[in-house]
């Protein structure tokens, strides 16, 4: 009896949280996305919102673009983070190891807004980098370095770096050094060791990092809008416009579900490809 009461007491907050703030709101979002306004305060079930998405090139173009850019940003982040994770996990020892690790963390104690402000001051036409390029004599006059796709990628990679570095380090640290030594003694080249020993071993960490980075990138709003300006065309921006600016909740809800579907699909594919379980990956990050 007492155990039963205890269970109820512990279950209550979890259920309130998950049902009240996660499950029911998403059901509501689902209902919204599957209806259409026919007259003031009169709605009927319909697929009109999704039809608009398919028929309006701007929308699905933005959607595909967001997905592709997120994949590119994830790949760049992985390529940039891997050598640093390797350096921290395998090359340096003791104090300098701890120091490098902390140095990777520091920028992420500061809010994304502050980091984006830094990039804006660096890259805008009147900013530091264009002035520097003029001073070097590379360009005759300051060039606008904001509002390009490359700028958005730089910002996204920057914001995501930590979430890639940490799972990579923990995956690489568990790799036994003697395995690499043995492979080396047996005549393995750097490349074949990387491909046949290191990457298979680090795969869980790589997948965990990629999933988290991809999701954060896909759902990012601040970096694309500020660094990309009017050219950013990010899908979260469409959701914001529909929901908040135009007050077209039905359309916004449909877009929300499309984004959620895309992110779930990619996470699922990532897990399938690497043969891992969602719970385990989340524990790692």
């Amino acid at each position, binding site marked *: 009896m007492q155990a039963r009461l205890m*269970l109820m*007491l*512990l*279950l209550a*907050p*979890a259920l309130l*949280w*998950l049902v009240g*703030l*996660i*499950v*029911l*709101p*998403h059901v*509501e*979002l689902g209902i919204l996305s599957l209806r259409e306004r026919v007259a003031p305060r009169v709605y009927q079930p319909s697929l009109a919102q999704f039809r608009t998405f398919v028929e309006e090139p701007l929308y699905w173009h933005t959607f595909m673009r967001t997905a592709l850019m997120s994949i590119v940003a994830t790949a760049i982040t992985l390529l*940039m983070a891997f050598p640093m994770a390797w*350096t921290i996990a*395998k*090359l*340096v020892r003791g104090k300098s190891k701890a120091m*490098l690790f902390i140095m990777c963390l*520091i*920028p992420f*104690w*500061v*809010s994304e*807004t*502050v*980091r984006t*402000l*830094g990039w*804006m*001051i*660096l890259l*805008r036409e009147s900013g*530091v980098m264009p002035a520097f390029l003029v001073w070097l004599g590379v360009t005759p006059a300051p060039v606008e370095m904001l509002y390009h796709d490359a700028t958005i990628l730089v910002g996204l990679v*920057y914001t995501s*770096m930590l979430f890639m570095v940490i799972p990579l380090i923990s995956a690489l640290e568990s790799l036994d*050094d003697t395995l*690499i030594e043995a492979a080396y003694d047996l005549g393995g080249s750097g490349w074949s060791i990387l491909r046949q020993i290191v990457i298979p071993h680090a795969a869980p960490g790589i997948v965990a990092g990629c*999933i988290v980075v991809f999701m954060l990138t896909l*759902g990012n*709003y*601040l970096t694309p809008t*500020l660094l990309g300006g009017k050219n950013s065309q990010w899908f*979260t921006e469409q*959701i*914001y416009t529909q*929901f908040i600016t135009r007050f077209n*909740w039905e359309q916004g809800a449909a877009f*929300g579900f499309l*984004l*959620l579907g895309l*992110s*779930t699909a990619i996470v699922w594919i990532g897990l399938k490809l690497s043969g891992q379980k*969602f*719970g385990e990956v*989340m*524990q790692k990050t």
Partner: protein
Amino acid sequence: MIASLPRPLWLRASTVIYGVAFFAFLFLPLVIVAVFAFNDAPYPAPPWRGFTLDWFLGSAESTRRGLFADSAMLGSVWTSVVVAGWVTLLSVLVGTANAFLIERTQFRGKQALSLLMLAPLVIPGVILGISILAFASRIANLADDVWGLELEFLRPGLPLVVLGQFSYIASIATLTITARLKRFDVTLEEAAYNLGASRLAVLWTITLPYLKPALIGSAAISFLMSFENFNTTLMLVGSDAPLTVMMYGRMREGATPVLNAVSLLLMVASAALALTMMRVPKAADTYP
């Protein structure tokens, strides 16, 4: 290659060059923000025109209103602190309850429930925001239609911001606290029961002190994540803007170095918080 193997010179050199470039990439934006908080110019842009503290101390009447005279900005900092305080409190409480639920009880569907607890981490923040916004306003409309009640807290505003941020930060607190409770040696509790301690006494003197590092750690993470949150907050915000939303608004308009000043303050504050955090768990880890 690893440290114990010989590495050719070019490889060592390129490791160093890469390392320097990597950290330059990480730190350049922050350094730039900090430096231009002190530039004697109306906009945070080069060239350097000399050192000034105007962007901190400038009075409200002058053309250069400094951070400490900018009541809107200071107000938004306070708003963020209040929101983060509530989110932290709720997340740690619910996270602790969840940890006990996962580690100490058995019931059907536990596996599914603990998986569902991780779901908020893979839902984009924007979607958490709009779904909670839509659901809250459905309830508010229902209450209005049926009972004629005006439930103000379910309209966009700070209570919804708190709930929105809590909805995913609770997952992080749950993960952190559960991980620590998992490693707890239950025989310690059994010994205490054998010695005649009550349930409450055991919880208070044995289990909670053991969990303390995780509780403090998750509180710090929750506070920081709430303070920095933008995506979910933007969707749920009413008339009182927390700091990130306020800064975003000003960044779009092309703001004065006051933004740099407040950013520098944030950097110092979060560095201080993080550094104290790093000391605390080490001291507390030696506990039972």
